[in-house]
């Protein structure tokens, strides 16, 4: 079905049209309209999944495993939808918050090349093609993170680029080993070959290379240094874009690889995943509680919450995987929302430092409500989306007798709550300290400024209220991952019919 290629093709067309655009106004219109179209396409693909289960497309008409196959299953479709919701909200957000010092039409250009890399990674069914999309993403994100070229920004972006390039190198080395051993890079074909392989132990070296490469991308425990070093430096629009999307692609790749074809030495890998998940949660959560700059707190929270997603993969039951996917979606939404709000706060107050601000609750109660939704969702307070994600993961952990990791997960939940309450107390409840950032009276926010947060907040609430429906789909995705027979069949044997 040709529609499968649209999530890649639309950004490509948008990039070309943005090359012609010189005025900021038109660039904004194209960006918002384009992201809306992307969202529609992802929803359409998701609806089509209901009857077809897995949609495939052989690019160039070459039958797989010879050619590159684009595959959309429930996991890809859910990630596509979430990503395009974020792209849409951030393109609205950029109208007011994008720094004027930027070459703004160029920002949208790289915004969509990031989107193209992102969508490509979600729908590709080929390992090398995934690498290419990772590179597309890495390059465009490097341009975005360095935009504005302030001194600390360049420092952050160099750290970001250096560590991520190391990851790419390991990824490439892993691809080489994988190809040398199996003679194919088509994911479904790999799954079929490795399933009947009696030397599966030999795959562990390869799998370890991928583990480290994706660990760097996803910011797992010993490999996360690039994230807090770089995320607080660029413009808040760029940070929000990265916070919701970049690391989650690493998580997606983890889930895809370690459910589809690296499934041989399960005991070893699942224990390794659980151990790293535990350390990731703890270090992230603890580091967050030590900081007083909103962007830094939230950056460390990204890391701690990657731990939950990997924990679901490590437990490896349908419930745990469903929980991990649910949690990933919830986290992409809520995390981006908190970053957007920290941007609004800093625009109103002129700083990201919590020590210097306060009294926002009195000055703008509506903003307080907007903040409390994603904050409580992240902390896991019942009617909101985060509660159900954590609940599923913890329930799966208890059912499968992983008591240590479950305890760590609960404890990290408390740390998250503490950090969110810290931001709440410092920014909203505390009296405004008497300094240069002091303003008296109410502060107004425009409609466009809060619209993205309102949308994302609504999504968080709705995901909580209709948790059963969403859970049904994530469970469907998890079942497809645990038993990839349909996936393999659809990719390898569609043309033979």
């Amino acid at each position: 079905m040709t529609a499968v290629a649209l999530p890649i093709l639309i950004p490509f067309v948008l990039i070309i049209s943005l090359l012609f655009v010189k005025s900021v106004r038109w660039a904004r219109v194209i960006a918002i309209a384009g992201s809306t179209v992307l969202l529609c396409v992802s929803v359409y693909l998701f609806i089509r999944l209901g009857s077809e289960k897995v949609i495939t497309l052989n690019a160039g008409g070459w039958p797989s495993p010879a050619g590159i196959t684009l595959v959309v299953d429930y996991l890809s479709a859910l990630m596509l939808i979430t990503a395009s919701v974020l792209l849409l909200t951030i393109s609205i957000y950029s109208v007011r918050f994008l720094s004027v010092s930027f070459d703004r039409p160029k920002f949208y250009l790289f915004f969509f090349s990031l989107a193209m890399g992102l969508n490509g990674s979600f729908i590709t069914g080929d390992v090398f093609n995934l690498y290419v999309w990772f590179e597309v993403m890495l390059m465009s994100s490097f341009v975005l993170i360095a935009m504005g070229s302030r001194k600390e920004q360049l420092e952050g972006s160099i750290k970001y680029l250096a560590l991520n390039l190391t990851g790419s190198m390991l990824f490439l080395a892993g691809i080489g080993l994988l190809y040398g051993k199996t003679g194919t890079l088509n994911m479904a074909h790999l799954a079929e070959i490795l399933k009947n392989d009696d030397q599966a132990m030999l795959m562990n070296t390869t799998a370890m290379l991928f583990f480290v490469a994706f660990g760097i991308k996803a910011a797992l425990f010993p490999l996360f240094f690039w994230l807090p070093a770089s995320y607080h430096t660029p413009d808040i629009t760029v940070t929000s874009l990265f916070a919701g999307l970049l690391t989650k692609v690493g998580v997606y790749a983890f889930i895809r690889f370690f459910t589809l074809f690296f499934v041989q030495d399960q005991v070893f890998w699942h224990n390794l995943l659980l151990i790293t998940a535990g350390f990731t949660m703890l270090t992230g959560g603890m580091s967050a509680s030590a900081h007083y700059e909103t962007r830094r707190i939230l950056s460390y929270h990204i890391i701690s919450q990657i731990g939950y997603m990997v924990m679901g993969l490590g437990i490896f039951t349908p419930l745990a995987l469903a929980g991990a996917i649910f949690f990933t979606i919830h986290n992409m939404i809520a995390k981006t929302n908190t970053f957007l709000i920290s941007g609004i706060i800093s625009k109103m107050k002129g700083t990201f430092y919590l020590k210097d601000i306060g009294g926002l609750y009195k000055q703008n109660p509506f903003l307080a409500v907007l903040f409390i939704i994603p904050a409580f969702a992240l902390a896991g307070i019942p009617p909101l989306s985060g509660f159900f994600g954590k609940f599923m993961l913890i329930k799966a952990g208890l059912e499968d007798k992983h008591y240590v990791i479950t305890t760590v997960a609960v404890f990290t939940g408390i740390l998250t709550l503490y950090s969110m309450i810290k931001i709440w107390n410092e920014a909203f409840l505390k009296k405004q300290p008497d300094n240069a950032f002091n303003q008296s009276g109410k502060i107004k926010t425009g409609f466009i400024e809060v619209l993205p947060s309102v949308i994302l907040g609504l999504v968080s609430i709705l995901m909580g209220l209709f948790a059963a429906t969403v859970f049904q789909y994530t469970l469907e995705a998890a079942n497809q991952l645990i038993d990839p027979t349909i996936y393999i069949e659809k990719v390898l044997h569609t043309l033979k019919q």
Partner: protein
Amino acid sequence: MNTVILKIASRYVRGLLIIFAVIALLRGHNFPGGGFIGGLLAGLSVAFKGYTFGIAYLKKHMSIMPEWFIISGLVMILFSAIPAFLNKTGFMTGEWYKITLPLAGELKLGTPLIFDFGIFLAIIGITIIFLFSLTEKE
């Protein structure tokens, strides 16, 4: 560098580079070569001109801005997907057309050639932009 020999030689060397670039582009479908390598070779000829006459001179005398190479290349890549879309043969399938020329005989032309030519143009543009930004002085 301001030597007469280099200036005269560069005129012929540049011509040769362009010829080789086109050859690399055209043989690329079944042999080593293709749009990327051809584009690099053609970009090299521009770089060569830059080194003989100076980058500043080159910047002043560019009749086509490098951005336009990239834009036209990308547009061409997009266009190469259209025939397959109209024939409903699947996304980006190569479509081939046979043309009989009066003297040379049969010529096979296809959408992969358009795709390769798009890459060729885009790479030329990117090479020139690299050249300009790397030689820029603060």
